[in-house]
């Protein structure tokens, strides 16, 4: 068996009395794509913040590619190969869409200028943002901002991509095109962790699924089995699984 690209070992985090990560153990293999579901406030985005280095854990360790990265800041982890998108888009509003990607390519991807230009342009084409390349990011619609989150993370050339709810609010056609894009990324060998409430989109892409509730991992495994497990049905009881 190959070495996991990401490992979380008994990672815990509290905000005051609120425990948002409760001894999370997780292992993601190279090329694996993992879906994450759970109710609002379960601690899903917090888990990303712990992996990406936005927040230090209270306890436990994060390993990336076999090395302990718990003490590294988010810039170092990005350069190591962890790319992330934010649930609430964090664009550089006063910079053009193209320049937003350049930041990722020049710093996270450590590329020289011309390579960063070429890579950014390629990603803009793939994410259908090319016509907006010179628009200031502050002028984008919410959907375009979400797409920018994905494009910018890709510009860092990640080996592990963390996607936080990028399918919400899309039309069916847009959703299908997003699914195709993410499948394309997956097929290049990038490992993916995708938090998503739009479960049908998630299930079209991921090869395993985990469930978080109150900061605890309560189920993990083959997506269909997890969806049909008692734990998930209890959490989502009375809720449409696709809502």
């Amino acid at each position, binding site marked *: 068996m190959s070495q996991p690209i990401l490992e979380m070992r008994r990672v815990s985090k509290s905000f005051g009395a609120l425990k948002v990560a409760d001894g999370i153990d997780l292992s993601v293999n190279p090329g694996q794509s993992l879906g994450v579901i759970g109710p609002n406030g379960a601690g899903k985005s917090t888990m990303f913040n712990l992996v990406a280095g936005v927040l230090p854990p209270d306890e436990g360790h994060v390993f990336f590619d076999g090395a302990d990265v718990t003490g590294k800041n988010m810039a170092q982890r990005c350069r190591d190969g962890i790319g992330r998108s934010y649930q609430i888009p964090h664009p550089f*509003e006063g910079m053009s869409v193209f320049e937003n990607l350049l930041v990722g390519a020049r*710093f996270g991807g450590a590329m020289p200028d011309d390579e960063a230009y070429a890579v950014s342009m390629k990603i803009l084409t793939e994410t259908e943002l090319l016509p907006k390349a010179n628009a200031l990011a502050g002028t984008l619609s919410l959907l375009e901002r979400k797409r920018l989150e994905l494009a910018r993370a890709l510009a860092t050339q990640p080996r592990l991509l963390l996607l936080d709810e990028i399918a919400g609010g899309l039309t069916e056609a847009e959703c299908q095109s997003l699914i195709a894009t993410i499948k394309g990324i997956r097929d290049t060998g990038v490992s993916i962790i995708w938090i998503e409430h739009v479960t049908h989109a998630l299930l079209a892409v991921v090869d395993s699924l985990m469930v978080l509730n109150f900061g605890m991992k309560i189920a993990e495994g083959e997506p269909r089995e997890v969806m049909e497990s008692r734990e998930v049905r209890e959490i989502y009881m009375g809720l449409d699984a696709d809502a």
Partner: protein
Amino acid sequence: MTDMSVEKPGASVSRATRESKIALPILIVLVVFLAAAPWWAGRADMRLMVEIFYYLVLAQMWNLLAGYAGLVSIGQQAYVGIGGYMLFIGTVFLGVHPLAAVIVAGVAAAILALPSGALLFRLRGPYFAIGAWVLAETFRLIFAQVSALGGGSGMSLPTDIVRSIADGRSAREAVVYWTALGLAVGSVVAVYYLLRSRFGLALTAIRDNEEASGSLGVNAWMTKFSIYIIAAFVTGMTGALIFLQKLRISPDAAFSVNDWTAFVIFMVVIGGIGTIEGPIIGVIVFFVLREFAADWGSWYLILLGTVAIVVMLKAPKGVWGYVAERWGLSILPVARRLDLNSVLDPSRKSRH
């Protein structure tokens, strides 16, 4: 300030704008015209212009700190003061030529900024601002204790050192004038190239969203710290220049929060924070108001306050921010434009 087009398979990036191409020769002529001022301007006008130039430098530096790195400091007078005192220490006690002492002053300010910055960077937001001010006050109190530097009442630059600047009063004033002009033009050009570089890309990202810059691989702490040191270096040189013109220093004048920070904040905010053009406009507005209200006494400060409030309410991005947004102008462009014509229609590429 040339147009750099990078031709790459499929990616052609340009940086100049139409207005920047028009403005460049005008700016060069303006600088040449200003450089000739000793031949056409009167003594009082030249003194005024020196003052305008050093405020331009201070405004550019404060804008880099607050407008880009998010370091809202009300303590930059610390480096004006240190620079000013280093001029006196360097020339009187170390025998350095006054012009060389200007550079020594910058270096000294940058060196002192290393521990000061490391300390202040533990503080965030308003605590950083207040911390910087407390630090500047501490420096003021320390310099007031040094009797060799005249203690609280300060000292004058000895006449033999004043003479060593140049022979005769008008030659001396011309040298001070050119030094000020050089610092002003140099700082604008340096900021321009800095912002166009890789470092500037990081700085602009930090300006817009510090957390996101980190998650895209930008070492925000190091970038901000570097800016703090650079600003201290340039502000220190400016401090030396200011007191080379005044020929007299005291702790209160050297570390004045009003003169070296409050007015500078006014200029940057009025002109347009987070742009290169903004501080230039702000300095002009400030001096126009000051000349206009020269005899108003304390009403002059009330005028400044009123202008500040009106601009902040009506055009929160400042005069330049408003103009640039309204007409899409960029005189000193730092952005990178992707040439979409060549991308979307490759046949047009050959026309370059």
